[in-house]
């Protein structure tokens, strides 16, 4: 078996006195979509955020255990900005900055030192195309994106995340604020992106997990109850709790 893209060993996470994650072990393979499912407050978003250290922003958050990206410890041996460049993130609600679409996309590359206009133009165009919003945006790149629909905004957010050329894309319930049609577009986009990126997606929507993911992890009370191929999880789960959850008996 090849080395996993991301590996979590023995992770405990506390918010103050509250233990949000208990003894998590997880391997995420390259160029696959891994879905995290489970009821609210089960720790799936928390784990996702620790994969690019967004939890560092939360006060009183303490993490133990080992997180590695390509075998390198991300909490000890990697610059935080470097990590976040390689592990991009798409948030629950589209959070475009109050500037033009172009500047939004170019923000990341500029952050990491790209300043040539031609190069930036190129990045903006390719990433918007990759995220399937080029047609809607190409005539209004200089305008604010705030007038666009939620789905379009979210795809621009994905383009923005792609613009720094990440290897891994973390998606935190990216469709929970969107209508069904936009949701399908984002899902198609995720499946498309899988060819080049490793994707981890947190979702409340179990159909979504079955539609797009290769592996699924089921979380409950801060623990991973079961982690397997998506197909196995949804057709033939080993744990009783998983079965109860996916058949809608709680959560």
């Amino acid at each position, binding site marked *: 078996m090849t080395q996993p893209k991301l590996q979590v060993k023995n992770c405990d996470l506390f918010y103050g006195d509250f233990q949000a994650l208990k003894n998590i072990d997880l391997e995420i393979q390259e160029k696959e979509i891994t879905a995290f499912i489970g009821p609210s407050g089960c720790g799936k978003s928390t784990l996702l955020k620790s994969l690019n250290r*967004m939890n560092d*922003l939360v006060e009183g958050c303490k993490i133990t255990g080992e997180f590695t990206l390509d075998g390198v410890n991300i909490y000890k041996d990697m610059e935080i900005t470097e990590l976040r460049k390689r592990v991009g993130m798409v948030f629950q609600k589209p*959070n475009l900055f109050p500037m033009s679409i172009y500047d939004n996309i170019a923000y990341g590359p500029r952050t990491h030192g790209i300043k040539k206009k031609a190069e930036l133009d190129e990045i903006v165009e390719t990433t918007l195309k990759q995220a399937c919003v080029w047609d809607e945006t190409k005539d209004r790149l200089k305008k604010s994106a705030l007038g666009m629909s939620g789905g379009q905004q979210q795809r621009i*957010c994905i383009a923005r995340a792609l613009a720094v050329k990440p290897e891994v894309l973390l998606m935190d319930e990216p469709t929970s604020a969107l209508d069904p049609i936009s949701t399908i577009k984002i899902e198609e986009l995720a499946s498309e992106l899988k060819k080049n990126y490793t994707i981890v997606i947190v979702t409340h929507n179990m159909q979504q997990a079955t539609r797009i993911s290769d592996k699924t992890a089921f979380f409950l009370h801060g623990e991973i109850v079961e982690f397997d191929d998506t197909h196995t999880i949804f057709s033939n789960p080993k744990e009783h709790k998983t079965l109860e959850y996916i058949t809608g008996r709680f959560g």
Partner: protein
Amino acid sequence: MSVMSDKMRTYRSHPMSLVFNILTKIAVTLTIGIFVLIVGYVIIKGVPYLKPSLFSANYTSDNCSMLPAIANTFIMLLAALVIAAPLGIFCAVYLVEYAKKGNRFVRLIRLTTETLSGIPSIVYGLFGNMFFVLALNWKLSMLSGACTLAIMVLPLIIRSTEEALKSVDDSFREGSYGLGAGKLRTIFVIVLPPAISGILSGVILAMGRIFGETAALIYTAGTVAKYAGLSDSGRTLAIHMYSLSNEGLHMNEASATAVVLLVVVLLLNGLASLAAKKLSKGGN
């Protein structure tokens, strides 16, 4: 009409409610009336005396020119803001973006800024006289005055900047960090631009305060009616007006000066609330 009679019926059985209602209306009429009276009186009384000689290049006791005082006021504004604006804005940046919420140091800073905003200007004047004029031996000078005023308006700028920064949605910060940007870049490129109108409103309010200030300046910047450099003593427009009306010989010129002072201060305050309004709109 039926609404009216309905109300009247209610008031007939509850006369105290009617009295209370009328009292509040009287109060509000008084408050607005006083504003209109003061502004109207000052303008009507002063405008006829706004003669060209009041804007002669140099001050003599005959022409009472306010031009040197106006020039000094601008220097004073500029100098005080150059000191206070970066200090205040950076302080707020530290409080909002770096400090942990509710830790002791933050509470200490909040307590001290509140204390500063409660200190009367005459106490600032006294302190400025003791510290800048005498202890640091800067003499009565524009610089002493500017430093005194800078401390005085500091809480104003800190508070408005803090509010403006807090109004910037956290998801912007997350988005920026998520793209691998550092704290500084996030602050300067993502957080400060949408907050700028709120910060501006604080700075403009500070300008208004500096423009109209007298008590803190008499014994720090002095009352010399000449064009002043930073190390010279010079009077600002507000002190100019005080000197004129205090001497009692130039009441007409004083009332003309009052017009200029009042109009500029009201304009500044109006601008500040416009800027603040723009912030609250941008936030939505």
